[in-house]
């Protein structure tokens, strides 16, 4: 049965409340998904840092002793097998990092520690190798960043939860729309049944309309979500300090594909609801 003409009155109606609800759930889902994806990138990057990175500090007020100890540390680190690259942070770089907070006080006067960064290494092993150097401290980067990583993970879980709630709401809305359409078009659908139309033929008529309305709603939601995401990304980029937009090409691909998935889900949910309801007909 080709639906090249409007067999049901609802097929000729413009997208209405259902499309607006779809737009709202799509917007909510995309924003939550974008946040989850961005946080996933940040958490991944940060957990990579915290899992393996070590920082060796030489805390000595005497610059000569401090530099001599730092040289000794570098020598000992060279002898340890399985260690990643060791990088001694130039003193100028350390001073530049704290300059903005010194309110004009020259940082060259401060007894800053010598800093040595290690990409990869066993903290206990390194601490053992340096234990006779009292001014040396070995810390894991994760020691400071751990709570932040856990907070990011929690926020990511919340975002994913919101996205899933939006997806579930879409399915329920589509089912309710399908049932409403069935009730509204009951007389016509009874005639189609009497003429020998199958449940599937009848349900496709309603599902087709719901899928089209869902498509309109999803498109509206996508446009609104893109506007919000791009606005926030530009604000983050404007902050600088290494806070570049965290959504890569894969994340953008996922975000653009999600509305299509949502339309598919709405159509499937509507189809399932219709088939169940039609099964109760004589």
């Amino acid at each position: 049965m080709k639906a090249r003409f409007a067999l049901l009155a609802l097929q000729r109606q413009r997208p209405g409340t259902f499309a607006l609800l779809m737009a709202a759930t799509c917007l909510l889902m995309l924003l939550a998904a974008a946040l989850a994806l961005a946080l996933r990138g940040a958490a991944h990057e940060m957990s990579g840092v915290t899992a393996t990175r070590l920082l060796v500090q030489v805390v000595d007020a005497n610059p000569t002793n401090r530099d001599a100890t730092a040289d000794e540390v570098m020598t000992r680190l060279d002898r340890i097998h399985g260690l990643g690259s060791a990088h001694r942070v130039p003193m100028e770089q350390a001073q530049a990092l704290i300059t903005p907070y010194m309110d004009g006080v020259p940082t060259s006067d401060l007894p800053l520690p010598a800093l040595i960064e290690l990409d990869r290494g066993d903290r206990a092993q390194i601490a053992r190798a340096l234990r006779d150097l009292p001014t040396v401290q070995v810390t894991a980067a994760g020691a400071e960043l751990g709570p932040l990583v856990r907070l990011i993970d929690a926020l990511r879980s919340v975002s994913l939860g919101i996205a899933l709630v939006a997806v579930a709401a879409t399915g329920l809305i589509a089912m309710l729309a399908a049932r409403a359409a069935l009730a509204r078009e009951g007389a016509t659908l009874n005639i189609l049944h009497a003429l020998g139309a199958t449940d599937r033929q009848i349900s496709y008529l309603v599902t087709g309309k719901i899928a089209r309305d869902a498509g309109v709603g999803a498109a509206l939601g996508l446009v609104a979500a893109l506007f919000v995401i791009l606005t926030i990304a530009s604000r983050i980029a404007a902050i600088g300090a290494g806070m570049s937009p965290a959504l890569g090409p894969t994340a953008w691909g996922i975000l653009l594909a999600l509305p299509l998935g949502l339309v598919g889900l709405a159509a499937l949910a509507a189809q399932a609801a219709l088939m169940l309801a039609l099964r109760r007909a004589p």
Partner: protein
Amino acid sequence: MAGIVHFDNVGLRYGTGAETLAGLSFTLAPGSFHFLTGASGAGKTSLINLITLAQRPSRGIVSLFGEDTADLPRRRLPALRRRIGVVYQDFRLIPQLSVFDNVALPLRICGMPEREIGTRVEELLEWVGLAPRASAKPATLSGGEQQRVAIARAVITHPELIVADEPTGNVDPDMAARLLHLLEALNRQGTTVLIATHDVNLLRQMPGASIMRLAKGRIDDPTGAVRFPPRESIP
């Protein structure tokens, strides 16, 4: 039980009330022509609903085309319904479709190609005198014209069984005769016809047709032996 329609001790009850139809047993042989008469409320429409699978019986066996409908899985019902053409008393046309599309609907449901549909529908509309109104919507038609559209829709697929509920109730005697001739022609080609009617003239125009009279949910003459009853005996 080699009938197109076979009822065996069939009863129909709505809710917990008394039976609307009770103990119906009859057979409609292939290629036969039957009238169904009875006073208003006698159960004619309920009986038609059982034959057209719009309702299931509360008890007894309803067989269509040799198959017990109680045992049929739901997915097989559409195929049975496509073998039955139904003319409803209230026409049941789809208001947003044109006359052409209403008549073409059963063919589209069966999946017939559009080019074949066009020829077939145009021929039939010509025959029932509605070709000039092919693009009109049902709401703009008179009762008689809507009746003719309903009849055209029922016979367009050349069904094996045609069930008509007061098919000539809204047409003039001339058109009633033409419609009856159409049904008669289809019957001569082997189609079984069952017409529920109060129209005595219609009964007189079909000598040889059997008459089933329904009274209080029961058939007075299940054998169909009552033929050409005198005018006053027909409710």
